[in-house]
């Protein structure tokens, strides 16, 4: 009995390890190989992360002169351990997208002492600025501001907003909620309902259904990711409420999934905010400049993020900026 429990636990751990870690074989060709250790979240986390991982895989290649080791985990302590191992393994550069913003000081100090240069990508860390070379990150609050200022520019007269939030407390939720909350507070927009669907499509649908059933009037759906926007739209469809360009309800989403951008192109949705997962190129350029004796101009680089409008989006935009399929 106990034996089997042990076996079961061992199996769980083994499966977890298999899911969590995937290391690249070292490349031995080329004149000077730059050793890079990447600590990231697993691609299965989201469409965003999948694109992010693909971006790094396509830039940090042997052909570009890199020897890459990557560790994926959603857990901060596992990420910390992996970072320590990379330091012991004497990588030249350490690239980190942390699961949590705290607890990294000592590891970064170790890296600094070992002469390893650290880059943060995607997310900021709560640490002293001299412990890393540069940070290439998204500004979620700015994403929200871009979206809200787009919405204000639509001149709808009245704004009655259904606000569907992501998992409470996540970076993306806090950032994308902020700007809209400010509008609610100032009275420029009316909050019909504000509830979390924890990124779940079906929950978003139920939230919108509840509003429709109550008979309350609304003309904007502000969903903090594409999936939830899709759920909300299916509730509108079932109730026979029109949505999209020139229709009753304005639909807004985030993340720029390719399928979501196609909805924009078809005029079914109105707006999709980008959350750029493409940081690899910027970091690679910085590393190349350091290697050739240059320096880094900017300590904090905010990824340029667009907001797409259904009336102006093109197929080329979808091909360039769309994530996934």
């Amino acid at each position, binding site marked *: 009995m106990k034996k089997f429990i042990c076996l079961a636990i061992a199996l769980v751990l083994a*499966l977890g390890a298999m899911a969590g870690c995937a290391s690249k074989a070292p490349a031995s060709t080329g004149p000077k190989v730059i050793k890079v250790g990447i600590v990231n979240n697993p691609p299965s986390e989201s469409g965003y992360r999948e694109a992010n991982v693909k971006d790094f895989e396509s830039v940090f290649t042997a052909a570009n002169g890199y020897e890459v080791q990557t560790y994926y985990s959603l857990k901060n302590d596992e990420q910390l351990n992996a970072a320590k191992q990379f330091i012991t393994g004497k990588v030249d550069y350490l690239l980190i997208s942390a699961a949590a913003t705290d607890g990294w000081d000592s590891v970064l100090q170790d890296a600094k002492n070992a002469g390893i240069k650290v880059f943060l990508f995607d997310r900021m860390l709560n640490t002293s600025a001299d412990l890393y070379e540069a940070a290439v990150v998204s500004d979620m609050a700015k994403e929200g501001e871009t979206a809200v200022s787009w919405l204000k520019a639509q001149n709808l007269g009245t704004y009655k907003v259904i606000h569907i939030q992501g998992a409470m407390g996540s970076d993306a939720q806090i950032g994308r909620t902020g700007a809209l909350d400010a509008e609610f507070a100032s009275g420029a927009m009316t909050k019909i309902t504000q509830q979390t669907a924890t990124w779940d499509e079906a929950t978003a649908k139920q939230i919108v259904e509840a509003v429709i059933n109550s008979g309350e009037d609304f003309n904007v759906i502000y969903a903090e990711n594409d999936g939830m926007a899709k759920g909300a739209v299916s509730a509108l469809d079932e109730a026979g409420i029109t949505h999209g360009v020139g229709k009753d309800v304005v639909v807004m989403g985030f993340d720029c999934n390719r399928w979501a951008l196609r909805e924009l192109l078809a005029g079914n949705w109105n707006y999709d905010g980008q959350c750029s997962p493409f940081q690899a190129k910027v970091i690679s350029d910085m590393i190349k400049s350091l290697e050739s004796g240059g320096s880094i101009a900017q300590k904090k680089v905010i990824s340029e993020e667009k907001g797409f409008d259904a009336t102006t989006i093109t197929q080329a935009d979808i091909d360039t900026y769309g994530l996934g399929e």
Partner: protein
Amino acid sequence: MPKTLRRPSVSLSHLIVPLLALLVIVIFNVIHDPSFFSVSLVVNNSGNTVLSGNLVSILNGASELAILAMGMTIVTAASGGQDISVGAGAAIAGSVFVKVIKSGNSSLGLILFAFLACCLAIMLFGAFNGALVAIFKIQPMIATLILFTAGRSIAYWVNGGATPTVSGDLLGYLGGFFPGMPVPTPVFIVIATGALFALALKFTNLRLYVQAVGINSTSSRLNGINTTWIKLLSFIILAACVAIAGVIRVCRLGLINHETILLDIEMDAILAVAIGGNALSGGKFSLAGSVIGAYVIQALTTTLYALKVPSNAVKSYKAIVIIALVAVGSPVIKKLLVKARDSFLLKRKAAGGAS
């Protein structure tokens, strides 16, 4: 033999608590907003005339939960434990379904084939869970922890992409409304699943075997029941329910997000079983109770949405109501109620005797 007086039935019927709960929610809503349960006909965006209203939302929204609760009831009854991997399992089932659909043109034949394929796949996982429980005697919650942990990663691996989408009229019909049919299709799927269970209980010994194994496994074996097989079977039955629930969820939206599809549904399913008056330690069971339990949970959720309870408080409100429900259904409280009723009856009897 002691002298017998008139003998009232000793146990409170097991359906009273969930029905009462449902009634309380209904009454609350009717008082709070008399139009809460009004149902109207609307023309939806694909030109169908369909029913719309909170009642429809509740019936429709609880479909996956109701189906899973039925399967969970059987597993609970037979094994005396619960399967916590149903959400992760639904992610796998949905992913396999999507994978097969994407290989073709979503015709009826392909949809059926895709459903069978995902059924088969998830039944294999169910059999794995069942084998750990029945053969290796691991506690169900620990055994299913494996799939609970790994399931969503496996689902990701099936399609190799984060939120693959599928489209097709027929798929839309399955997750929404068939043309000319004002009632959502998932509601019919629940009815069909319920009917299948009813038939299985009528034309096989499923109920007797499952209850016997759940109550006393040793004794059941000595009466010739293959207890290992029955436990295994219960997990396979649940797996079929998981496949159905997963497919409904995929059809509703035309995409699968393996990280969020039916997230935490296992807790709701277990709760539905408990609210339905079933002992989580196994034995006698009532499918009807669990199904009512599922609708109670959904009615509660819909009510909270309608009340616009703030995001971060929804779960706390839910928890309070659930604690109240489970407490009322607990054996201790039931015993107290029975005792109160008995002493009342005795007193009345005594008073009647005196007069």
